[in-house]
């Protein structure tokens, strides 16, 4: 069980630096992606976008015939494909502009290959999780479409909060998700003061996904900071 289905997604890479495009393409191919196309200008990118219908785009902000932000809004008018901005512009204004426009992620160059691949994977997971609803864990599996956990013969349904928490953890599988991020995912914008509540929910999730909830192997505590979900694919 793996991310194979995600790695078959069509990825469009747009940057005015041919060398960089070449490198990113190589990094992604090595990571298992097969459907990749590149573009060096907004026009070319938009043409490919229309013809090829990519399922994720990595956009540079500064392009020879326009900027990535406007390319992004043109694309968004026709589809809501997930977008990762990859740019040399690191100023806060640019970053916030990217976020405000609804970009899925914003990365400032320079970057490490692993950083890029993990962020792309995270976006794909988030955007296409329902296509492969079953995530396998060490001792159980989570079916996100049905909001159920299969442990042995047992089928246990997830409450709304448990579902939100597991989604947040799965998006960042293998990485620490802080207490605050989890509270925000489950309780929204003003998440102060839910720590104890969160602990209770985590305990109940463990009861569902772990063989021995007091000795968890899939949903790990990072003391004081947060939690980490270990899936089969992250192992």
């Amino acid at each position, binding site marked *: 069980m793996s991310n194979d289905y995600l790695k078959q997604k069509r990825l469009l890479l747009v940057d005015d*630096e041919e*060398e*960089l495009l070449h*490198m*990113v393409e*190589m*990094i992604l191919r*090595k990571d298992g992606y097969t459907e990749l196309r590149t573009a060096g200008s907004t026009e070319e990118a938009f043409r490919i976008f229309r013809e090829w219908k990519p399922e994720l785009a990595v956009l540079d902000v500064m392009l020879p015939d326009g900027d990535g932000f406007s390319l992004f809004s043109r694309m968004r008018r026709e589809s809501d494909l997930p977008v990762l901005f990859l740019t*040399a*512009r*690191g*100023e*806060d204004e640019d970053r916030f502009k990217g976020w405000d426009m609804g970009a899925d992620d914003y990365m*400032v*160059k*320079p*970057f*490490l*290959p*692993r*950083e890029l691949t993990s962020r792309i994977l995270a976006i794909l997971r988030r955007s296409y999780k329902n296509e492969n609803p079953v995530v396998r864990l060490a001792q159980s599996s989570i079916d996100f479409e049905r909001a159920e956990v299969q442990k042995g013969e047992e089928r246990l349904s997830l409450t709304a909060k448990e579902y939100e928490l597991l989604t947040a953890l799965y998006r960042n599988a293998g*990485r*620490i*998700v*802080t*207490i*605050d*991020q989890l509270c925000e995912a489950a*309780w929204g914008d*003003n998440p*102060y*003061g*839910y*720590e*104890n*509540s969160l602990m*209770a929910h985590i305990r109940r999730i463990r009861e569902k996904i772990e063989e021995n909830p007091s000795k968890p192997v899939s949903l790990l505590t*990072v*003391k*004081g*900071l*947060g939690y980490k979900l270990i899936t089969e694919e992250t192992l």
Partner: protein
Amino acid sequence: MKHTLRLIRRFVFILMFSVILLFALNVILFIAATYDETNARGGWQWAEEVTEELLSSDGNGLKLSQKGAEILEELDAWAVLVADGTGDVIWHSDNLPPEIPLHYSAADISWGTRGYIKDYPTTTASKGKDLLILGHPKTRYWKQMWNTWDYDLIKNAPGTILKAAGVNLLVIIFIYMVFTFGFLRSVKPVVDGIERLPEEEVHVRERGQLSGLASAINQASEKLRSQEHALKKKERAQANWIAGVSHDIRTPLSMVMGYAGELEENRALPDEARKQAQVIRLQSVRMKNLINDLNLYSRLEYTMQPLKRSKVDFAAVVRLAAADFINSDLEQKYPVEWSMEEGLAACVIDGDKELLGRAVNNILTNVRVHNPDGCRITIKMEKEKGKDGKRKGERGKDEKRTDEKEKDETRRDETGRLSLIIEDNGTGADQEQLKQLKNTPHYMMCGRNGSSERGERHGMGLLIVRQIAEVHGGTAEFFQSQEGGFGVKLTLTLEHIAVMIEKA
């Protein structure tokens, strides 16, 4: 206007002082000038002295003594002795002018006593029942002939003098005020202009007596503004230049980092080559951090980075930065130990979330740079409780939103200061370096002696930490940790702190 009032007060004081001084001076001068007059009592004294020197001689005649003669000679005066009853002159000095009569009626004597005899001013003294008349040279004395004063005039003199003095003073003050206000009216714009000069652009109307001054102020203002503008332009250009350079470096550096990362993981390569690729990758990461720091540094320094203040839970910021740090530590060389004061829930401060995260990130990155072989990191958050640890009602709304399960919890909000302490057990810094970190001004970010045992510098990254703490009204301290490593203590002011109290 404050200055002007002070000026007026001062002027009035000086005026009063001068009036009093002048008065005193005049009195003294008057006394000095009339001193001789007072002694001789206007010539009357001489008459008495001459009378005393007029001695009887040989039984029948009168004779002036030697001393008397000398007095007369010195005064250049003549003298006659008029007998009582007859009005005849029974003695006279040798130098008697011929026009002086030798017989006097009672009216003549009264007239002569009050005024002049043949234009000679006279003084008299009695010798027994007889009268000695001393005649002085014509230009020796003025005589006041009608020397009577109205009784009331003398009686009321003190009041009259006081009134006159008062009127005089009022007149002087009036003249002064009219002049001063006229002057101040023309000075005021100039004074105002000078006062405003440090803050804003000033233009003073150039007219009246002080137009020269006004135009000088206008020129100074123009010069100041243009210099300020030039300086700002220069700073902006500098910051933009740095931003531009760092932008241009990012793309090539991406490729260095990207390919180095790929080579490092390429199992077809010999170990040695992969290790070298790793060095390239690590160093390019350092360059990346340096570029980010440099850019942020110049933006903060030239205040081109406006603070995006909001209510931030600093604990969440630190947790996120720590989690990012651990997530990126794939080899798990930097175990992080987290400890937060028991019961602390949210530490809300008024700050810029991004910048605060950046500060924590810089501290952690600094640890990694200085300890490539890994080390243990402890992150501690404590509150330094303020005296007014009080409840705040404004959080009441949020309380109601908590889950039903948490009804047995209440919040207590406290203000005070919050400190974040991040320590490691790796490479420390010696006193010299710590001192340097503490004292280095922002613009001298790369001290030459700043190298530690490993030849690494605790450089700009930490200065940015300090900068960020300072723009938030807090402090950053750098110290030697208990385990010999490096330590940073960040102290910030709490907006409020939420403490969870579990009810039994």
